[in-house]
């Protein structure tokens, strides 16, 4: 494997086939991809294109059946065991019997951080996602957007360099979503993490990413990789600029080329 030193995720001819009662389903087929350190990579495509599956392979929640993949130069299993990444799911998946604070502490408890360390980190990560003062609340006392922010705090708490986010804002309304996107960019700038972000919103992908991976279904594959020319500093208004619209157009073209608009 000749992945460059700065490569965080490196996939070569990656494939994953699920055996189902209706015969094999090719969730991923011949995916080649490099994610560099500090990248913000979005995976976009219609449902069934394998974007979530790809993220789950990186996280060792699914095993690839063909090709190779390394995460931080290790196999995904090794990477998971050395706690290389934080994962944010589609739903907040907060444990309802724990306060926000206790939810953020959960990974730290499991990883055996000391009590004082736990306290500091909870404080710091809650500040980072603008939830200062909400630590003692239970999840049901928070809005959907705040809950998802808490789950991001939980993924950040143990300082993994890689953040995997699976449509984290998919269930939220557009106003909240815009707000969270803006915050996420700030967070990314502040923490210098590498982020892999699954979405099916074109504006979201273009607004957030340094690199947009366009995927198409049956079999799940990569049809285009677009390097964003937008600056790292991005106010929300950037979405009105011709440059932004041009990238969005290219993404849309990529989706169309993958026949994603059929059916």
């Amino acid at each position, binding site marked *: 494997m000749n992945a460059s030193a700065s490569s965080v995720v490196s996939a070569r001819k990656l494939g994953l086939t699920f055996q189902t009662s209706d015969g094999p389903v090719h969730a991923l087929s011949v995916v080649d991809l490099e994610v560099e350190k500090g990248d913000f990579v979005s995976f976009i495509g219609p449902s069934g294109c394998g974007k979530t599956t790809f993220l789950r392979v990186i996280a060792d929640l699914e095993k690839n059946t063909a090709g190779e993949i390394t995460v931080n130069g290790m196999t995904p299993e090794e990477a*998971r065991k050395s706690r290389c990444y934080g994962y944010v799911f589609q739903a907040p998946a907060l444990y*309802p*019997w724990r*306060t926000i604070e206790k939810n953020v502490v959960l990974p730290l*408890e*499991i990883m055996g951080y000391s009590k004082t360390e736990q306290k500091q980190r909870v404080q710091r990560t809650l500040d980072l996602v603008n939830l200062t003062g909400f630590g003692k609340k239970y999840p049901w006392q928070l809005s959907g957007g705040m809950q998802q922010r808490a789950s991001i705090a939980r993924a950040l708490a143990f300082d993994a360099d890689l953040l995997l986010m699976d449509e984290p804002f998919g269930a939220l309304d557009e106003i909240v979503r815009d707000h969270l996107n803006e915050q996420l960019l700030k967070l990314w700038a502040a923490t210098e993490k590498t982020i892999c972000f699954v979405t099916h919103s074109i504006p979201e992908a273009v607004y957030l990413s340094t690199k947009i991976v366009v995927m198409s279904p049956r079999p799940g594959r990569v049809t285009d990789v677009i390097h964003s020319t937008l600056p790292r500093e991005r106010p929300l208004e950037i979405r009105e600029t011709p440059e932004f619209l041009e990238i969005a157009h290219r993404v849309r073209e990529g989706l169309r080329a993958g026949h994603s608009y059929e059916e």
Partner: protein
Amino acid sequence: MRSETFASRIGPVLTIVATIIVIWYAAAVWMNAPFQRDLDRRGDVTSTTMEFIAKTLSQPKPIVPAPHQVAQNVFENTFLRKVSSNRSLVYHSWVTLSSTLAGFAFGTLLGVLIAVGIVHVKALDRSLMPWIIASQTVPILAIAPMVVVVLAAINVTGLIPKALISTYLSFFPVAVGMVKGLRSPDIIQLDLMRTYNASRWQTFWKLRVPASMPFLFTSMKVAVAASLVGAIVAELPTGAAAGIGSKLLAGSYYSQTIDMWAALIAGSLLAVILVTIVGIGARLIDRRMGVRPA
């Protein structure tokens, strides 16, 4: 506001109680009338309807005792007797209660252990469940005397055989409820644990156990009532000297119907108290776990 909800809760209950009492009185008159008529004919007594009804409601050994007779019996044997007296309902209730509680504790423990085994060991999942279900299809009235007699033969008597019957009845709801409870976490919550590389033990304590708490308490409510039934049934064949079961048996031997009904009432009250206590426990745990108030 609070008293209003209290009133709206207690109202329907009182209505039902009143209805039951009316039906009960009617049934007492109707069931005791033939014997009273017989008695009157032989004694050559003629009485007005009201007098006749009054007599049917004050027989010493009626077929159906009237509510006030039972109430009086319960009151006398609860408050007017020494607690150590053989006629005290408190004494008999305590005897039954102690084996109920012992059996309930064993049963809950056993049920939880079985559930943990079933959830974690695939072989147990496949092999144990059919047996557990089969165990509950055996009529307890058939099993109880055998257990009691066999244990008596090896000199195990008193509380333990009765507690065992309670255990036998109460482990089942807990086992079934806890299997469901320990499996209740979403895939996503389990995946989260996997991304942390959490051990099985950590996943168990930090996710499965807290997620199962509502299931545990629901099944414990069923289990505690079953334990009481088990203890009472176990007292029937032992010729037990004490306990609500023995009181029922003695009552039926000597046609002391009022005593029997009083014992039944004591048993029901005991059940209500036990289920209420478990319910309060559930609410305390709920509060500790930050459950959204309904």
